């Protein structure tokens, strides 16, 4: 890697190949459509070829104009030819660092580096792309800056570093402890999560869109559809389940293959995952505000769960960057959670239930919509002569609603330990959040009209990480203030 007198560095020159490739992939559907369209016409003018030099020129321009450097305790990124844009971030505000390598990045030995700092999207620095080694060295420079003893690096506020001094942490150094490694048998949990199903649906949608561009393929679909509709209904259901499960498994493998979570001596959490697109995420321990144990219904029934981290600086659109463990047996996830937050009571201890008012509210909320739907079904049968067999759904709906309400109440609970505030809620999407007490930066006590009537409130702890706020739902008012007083006694004392 080259560096000029002022310490400015460039992107890797190999990115010149990546940019045209990405553009090509983005316009691939349009190009295919063009080819299909051309096949029937006499027009031999390949005008789309004129775009190629333009795209390449654009890439070169980007390479020439983009520079970055680390100096004076800051990382600076400069871009643009006519409008020069400089993004600066203080090194001590760096929260997480993402290394992403798509297939073509990997072929070329490149990785895209995304550095997120305090705040939102505009505080993100993207370097697309660096050589993998340079990217890892940069990450080491940014994350290991705190403890010179570990890396032998000078503190960040000083002269630019000599790059050869920075250790390349490509293979995990000996002192990195491996917290969890994907066991291929966990793939069986893929079809049990909504995420898995959603990705399956996305694949189906994408594929059907791609295929519909080729009109000659349509007859294949029609024949297929006729074939399927002639089968017995239970075969159809099995077929559907099979296809969806396969797709969910595919999505799981693509996302989580080779998943590994490690922790270095500074406590920085480091995940690596992905079959085709390789993604590495490093999370500064000082930015972690807690953990979240997810137990959606499907996983819970199978005795599994998954683990996420509550941290500032992860971006929502990088779905999955906050995963510390993909869906796995609870026997693996709970001990893992304990290694990250060693607080037995918080991670797996019993929670204080929220009492009868909360229970009534859960039941009302589940049953009322079910009753409305059931009533509509009956009305539809009487007025518009809908098929009578639909009425079978009525008792199913009601029983399901009561079961859901009861399960939602069972989930509801909270507890306060010396270091953490724990809250749990939800049935279909149950989550238990273990939030660091010193990560809480404010409180809200919310009460709707109906909550006031029955003397419950929703206690909201606001934090700079994750979802920004975590709620203790429908807790009796006195209990809400008791929690507040226990976690933030100084704050309450101000207004005693």
């Amino acid at each position: 890697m080259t560096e000029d007198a002022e310490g400015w560095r460039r992107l890797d020159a190999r990115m010149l190949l990546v940019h045209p490739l990405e553009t090509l992939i983005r316009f691939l559907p349009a190009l295919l459509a063009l080819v299909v369209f051309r096949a029937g016409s006499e027009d031999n003018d390949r005008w789309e070829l004129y775009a190629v030099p333009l795209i390449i020129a654009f890439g070169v321009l980007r390479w020439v104009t983009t520079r970055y450097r680390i100096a004076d305790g800051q990382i600076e990124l400069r871009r643009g030819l006519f409008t020069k844009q400089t993004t600066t971030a203080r090194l001590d505000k760096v929260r997480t660092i993402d290394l992403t390598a798509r297939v073509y990045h990997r072929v070329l030995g490149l990785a895209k580096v995304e550095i997120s700092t305090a705040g939102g999207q505009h505080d993100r620095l993207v370097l697309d792309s660096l050589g993998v080694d340079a990217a890892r060295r940069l990450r080491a420079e940014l994350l290991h800056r705190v403890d010179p003893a570990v890396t032998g690096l000078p503190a960040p506020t000083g002269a630019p570093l000599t790059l050869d001094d920075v250790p390349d942490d490509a293979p995990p150094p000996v002192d990195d402890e491996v917290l969890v490694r994907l066991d291929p048998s966990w793939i069986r949990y893929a079809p049990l999560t909504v995420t898995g199903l959603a990705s399956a649906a996305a694949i189906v949608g994408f594929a059907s869109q791609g295929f519909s561009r080729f009109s000659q393929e349509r007859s294949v679909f029609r024949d297929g559809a006729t074939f399927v509709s002639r089968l017995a209904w239970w075969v159809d259901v099995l077929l559907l389940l099979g296809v969806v499960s396969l797709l969910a498994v595919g999505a799981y493998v693509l996302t989580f293959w080779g998943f590994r979570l490690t922790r270095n001596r500074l406590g920085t959490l480091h995940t690596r995952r992905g079959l085709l697109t390789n993604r590495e995420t490093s999370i500064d321990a000082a930015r972690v505000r807690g953990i979240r144990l997810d137990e959606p219904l499907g996983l819970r029934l199978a005795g599994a769960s998954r683990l996420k981290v509550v941290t500032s600086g992860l971006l929502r659109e990088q779905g999955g960057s906050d995963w510390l463990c993909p869906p796995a047996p609870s026997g693996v996830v709970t001990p893992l959670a304990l290694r990250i937050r060693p607080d037995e009571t918080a991670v797996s201890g019993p929670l204080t239930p929220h009492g009868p008012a909360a229970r009534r509210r859960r039941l009302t909320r589940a049953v009322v919509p079910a009753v409305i739907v059931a009533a509509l079904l009956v009305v539809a049968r009487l007025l518009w002569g809908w098929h009578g067999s639909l009425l079978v759904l009525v008792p199913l709906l009601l029983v399901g609603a009561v079961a859901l309400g009861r399960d939602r109440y069972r989930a509801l609970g909270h507890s306060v330990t010396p270091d953490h505030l724990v809250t749990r809620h939800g049935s279909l999407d149950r989550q238990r959040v273990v939030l660091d007490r010193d990560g809480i930066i404010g409180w809200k006590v919310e009460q709707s009209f109906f909550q006031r009537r029955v003397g419950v409130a929703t206690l909201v702890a606001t934090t700079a990480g994750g979802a920004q706020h975590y709620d203790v739902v429908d807790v009796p008012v006195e209990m809400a203030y008791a929690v507040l007083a226990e976690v933030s006694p100084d704050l309450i004392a101000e207004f005693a």
Partner: protein
Amino acid sequence: MPVAPGAVLREPAHRVSRRAVLMWTLQALVVVALLLAGQVVWWLVDDAPSRTPHWVVGAVWLVVGAAYAVAMPQWRYRVHRWEATPHAIYTQSGWLWQERRIAPLGRVQTVDLERGPVAQLLGLAAVTITTASAAGPVTIHGLDLSVAHELVDALTAAAVAETGDAT
């Protein structure tokens, strides 16, 4: 069993300005006026011979709108309270949905003073205290302008005095 809000943690000490009632009333009237405009448009574009639906709908929103414009501001005024100490800020707001917010000043990032058109007319201002959490801004509406300025100065001074990087 209603629990008196003061039973568990006393209310914040100060009420907002009495003129806030007027501000909320004017704001409510704007909403009602928008509904009226919709009603007028409907009257003009409707070709049906019968005008009964117009009178029925008009009467309903007039009653609801009047109740809203009269009751909501009073209700709000009774709920809205605030208090600031050198270390923390504590507010209570809302009407049907009510909430109390409490935040330590050590975690404050910005303090903003805002004045909407109606507020300017009445010499009022709103003060917003932002923390590092996107869920945590604390806003006090309907403060007397001079009180708001004093509060901003006090909060800024206090926030500087507190240590910590606000996350």
